[in-house]
């Protein structure tokens, strides 16, 4: 059972309170009705399914109710960072580009 840091509750909470919500930073196309079948398939179905560091969404569904983003290693299941929805894709903590933007968050 994972322990997840909710960036809104600023608290480490049991996985029981959360629901996984798929890969993060897949924006719904602006003019969705205009895109091609291939582009729709890419948007709606195709996934990186990364082995290693992945960006994903969670919802603290039985807590504050908010969706948020997380960086997690899908091999070790360790969270590296969680951050609020709406923020751009955050760099992996400890890498060169990390720390450029300040985000409210933290790893559980």
């Amino acid at each position: 059972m994972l322990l997840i840091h909710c960036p809104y509750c600023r608290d480490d909470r049991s996985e029981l309170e959360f629901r996984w919500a798929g890969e993060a930073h897949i924006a719904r196309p602006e003019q969705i009705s205009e895109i091609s079948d291939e582009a729709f398939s890419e948007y709606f179905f195709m996934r990186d399914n990364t082995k290693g560091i992945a960006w994903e969404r969670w919802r603290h569904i039985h807590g504050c109710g908010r969706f948020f983003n997380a960086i997690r290693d899908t091999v070790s299941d360790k969270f590296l960072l969680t951050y609020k929805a709406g923020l751009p894709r955050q760099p992996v903590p400890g890498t060169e580009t990390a720390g450029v933007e300040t985000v409210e968050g933290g790893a559980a």
Partner: protein
Amino acid sequence: MRKYSVFAVAREAMRSHKGWEQQWTSPEPRSSYDVIIIGGGGHGLGAAYYLAKEHGITNVAVIEKGWLGGGNTGRNTTIIRSNYLYEESMDIYEHSLKLWEGLSQDLNYNVMYSPRGVMMLSHNTHDMQSFKRHINANRLYGIDNEWLTPEEAKKFCPPLDISKTARYPINGAALQKRGGTARHDAVAWGYARAASDRGVHIIQNTEVTGIRRGPNGEVTGIETNRGFIGAKKIGVSAAGHSSVVMQMADVRVPLTSNPLQALVSEPLKPIFPCVVMSNTVHAYISQSDKGELVIGAGTDQYHSYSQTGGLQIITHTLDAICELFPIFRRVKMMRQWGGITDNTPDRSAIQSVTPVPNLFVNCGWGTGGFKATPGSANLFAWLIAKGEPHRLAQGLTLDRFRTGRLIDEAAAAAVAH
């Protein structure tokens, strides 16, 4: 290959089993092959076997990162059935079931296919509608599946609680008598032995690190931790790791890899004669020949390659098992484990050509991969040999995610109104 038989066992018993040969050989890889299969589970080994047996293609290597059958083949709860709803699913699973029925003899390896019956419990009106839809479709398609009353279900599986006071009383069940179980390791080993005997190279402990492409984008071989190995065609059958391997050829697939857990009890004398599944309370259970109750739990919700999962998934499953079979509350869990399932959006498999010439993929079997093993392997061999899908696997191509022609077995079992 020396044939296995009761006489061979007797002969070896007389000389302390000194005469058994290696079941498969472990040769050094050649510089190139006609076909390389990536993934040494049941599907990959089986595809190699059928390439050799049915298509005369024997210059084949199966490349396995770890040990044969160490992925989902050796981690599943070994349920076999073919009573699916859609024609595309019935085609492949029934093809598979027919192969299961003769597999031990075909491979000369006892895979212990045990058609003890798979019973799916119905708990409410919605289940009943859905099951009868399956039963009718199966019957018209020539697949056995029958409706049982609660009393008939209890007769078939005596530990079942059919009391009306249960939280979710049982109002019937669907039974596929030809469904059952098989011995998972034996499937991998049997295919490996038979394929090896036909000249297929089985190369374990070799990790694919890249897929090399030619001037027209076609595959030319694989990079591995033991060097480059050439290939005219590549078939990827890497289950939970399919996305990872396909990315080496810049092909994206609609997969999510999730942990799927299972557990066994301590060994008990025979108490449970069949396989029972319940979708409403999320549980499936059978008893192994060793006497362990084999219980499949649900998938963890998040994508992961860790082969572990949360305790809550196990307890949730046991809640349901003990609700259906209250006499099991004093039974003990002996071991729990996890595998990685590769799940597609419509919960049906992908067997397809890809945008990359001569690269073929077999993935997305989710929780249904074991039962599909012989059928999938057989049709995947056809796909690789002929370059186009077999009649029975035409619906499984990647193109369905563009056109929208999904095979949505999950949606067909839609939640209650």
